[in-house]
């Protein structure tokens, strides 16, 4: 995979949920090479504040009426300087993007797939679901191999119903089961999304592969469940990042490793290059022991 740095125009900018928006860009070159769970950096050209690009995961690529790749979409929640600036963008405005970056989620290995999303961590799962269910292939340029799963379920949690974003997009994927959870019960299950996950892990059937993206406490809870049920589990991290392509060494996560002498140890690995997706059993969460 080779990344590109390119200017891209805003094709569409619309609300998805409370404080949550989707931006569609005409970054065709990038769109043809990206896979689900990969990300790209977005910067406002020529502006010094915000200075750095910010990483955004692919929501999905888009095609024109003839089926040609026309652009790509990402979702964001307005939380800070950059997302506040993004919220001002209108169709036709130009941004700078570079990517695709990171390893992304592995393609479906078959069996039961359970996606666990918290908040805006839902972003990578539309493309992943479409791929697993045979709707779309990635990268467009040279599609990767996918083993047909026996079932695909998205367990998606948010604070309340107002923050659930893109639910209609998910429900439109043929064969994708969508299970929702909210903290206040305003939509779906009242409680944690990990409680939905545990029901799948308890149920008999083919092996479960977990893919998760969301806030760190959620990922840590998913990790714990995956380890106790001995399920393969992929966690996608979001860490503060300056470049996105491995040069700055900002975005490190603690990863278990075994020394040549056979001792248990750890080292920092870059989320942008060696991640953002790591296997649950190799990750050490620092902030939420």
């Amino acid at each position, binding site marked *: 995979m080779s990344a590109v740095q390119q200017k891209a125009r805003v094709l569409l900018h619309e609300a998805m949920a409370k404080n949550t928006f989707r931006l569609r860009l005409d970054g065709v070159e990038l769109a043809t090479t990206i896979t689900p769970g990969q990300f790209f950096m977005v910067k406002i050209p020529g502006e*010094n504040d915000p200075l750095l690009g910010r990483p955004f995961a692919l929501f999905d690529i888009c095609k024109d009426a003839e089926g040609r790749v026309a652009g790509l979409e990402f979702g964001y929640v307005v939380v800070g300087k950059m997302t506040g600036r993004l919220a001002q963008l209108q169709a036709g405005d130009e941004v700078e993007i570079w990517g695709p970056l990171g390893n992304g989620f592995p393609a479906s290995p078959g069996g039961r797939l359970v996606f666990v999303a918290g908040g805006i961590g839902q972003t990578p799962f539309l493309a992943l679901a479409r791929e697993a269910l045979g709707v779309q292939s990635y990268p467009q340029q040279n599609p990767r191999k996918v083993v047909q799963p026996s079932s695909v379920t998205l367990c998606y949690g948010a604070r309340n119903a107002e923050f659930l974003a893109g639910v209609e997009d998910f429900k439109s994927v043929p064969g994708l089961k969508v299970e929702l959870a909210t903290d206040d019960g305003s939509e779906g299950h009242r409680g944690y999304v990990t409680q939905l996950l545990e029901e799948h892990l308890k149920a008999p059937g083919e092996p479960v592969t977990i893919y998760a993206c969301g806030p760190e406490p959620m990922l840590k809870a998913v990790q714990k469940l995956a380890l106790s049920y001995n399920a393969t589990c992929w966690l996608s991290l979001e860490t503060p990042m*300056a470049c996105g392509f491995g040069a700055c060494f900002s975005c490190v996560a603690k990863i278990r490793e075994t020394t040549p002498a056979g001792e248990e140890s750890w080292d920092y690995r870059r989320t942008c290059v060696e991640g953002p997706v790591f296997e649950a059993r190799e990750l050490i969460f620092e902030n939420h022991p």
Partner: protein
Amino acid sequence: MPGSNLVSFIKKPSVMSLTSNLPVSLNVQLGRLSLKNPILVASGTFGYAREMSAFVDYAQLGGIIPKTVTREPRAGNPPPRTVETTAGLLNSIGLDNDGIEVFITKHLEALSLLPTALIVNIAGKSTEDFVVMARRLDEFNPIQALELNISCPNVSGGVDYGTNPTMTAEVVAAVRQATSKPIIAKLTPNVTSVVEIARAAANAGADALSLVNTFQGFAVDWKTGEPRLGNGLGGLSGPAIKPLALRIVWQVAQAVDCPIIGVGGIQSLDDVLEFLVCGATAVQVGTANFYNPSLSSQLTSGLEKVLQDRGCSRVQELIKTVKVPKNQRKTC
């Protein structure tokens, strides 16, 4: 006469060149180090170069300086390691690297094959560390110079080498003994007088001075009282520091007879030219590599064009052409 024909043959192109493109020499000399052009990339902002391969045409660069190498592996500082501030980046990476032996086996060969000069940046906790590393790297011919990081604000337990002229002179002189390669001392701005440190480094045998490393800074979340960096203190870089770096380059260029590599907030061709005019012989693009990764290799052609437009045949003609400030020109 054959002689007069020759003269007219030589003269013609130079007359034409007033209206067409004069060949411009971008070559610069930094002590014993010769570079094909003055555009370098700063250590710690270019990874080990392979990270930049999708964005950069290495051949356009005067040289590359990979991430700082230390004698022993270093895990680096706990995250968060960077936080963005207004027009700047505060970092405390902490020289995360696998140590010199892994650098040699894992990175050096690939770096050696790049079509540009390779300058290796080293940091030590003691003069012995610097000397041992300089000796170890001396045998590798593709390494054209060593840059001594005596200025990283994120790793020292006590006083940095670069904050003390005696210690600066000691480490530069010791490395000069240990290697035949040109030596660049990268200095910290976090001192009362960079001129004093610069003079010490120059007198001890530095071929050039990189001015400057990051400015110490701090960021806090007032709501929680938590420092924003895992390490607390960090080093500030980016456009926010350009005037600060330019001031130091300008002052040192007036006071010390040693080639300067200007570094601090460069993100455009104008920035490059400002550093050259203030007295830098070469520059390093740093933080801009993070948010405009293809910038560095685009600057060379732009620089060539500016020199042509101004009728300069050599980049040296621009260097240190800064004028004396107006209110100092009057004689009393």
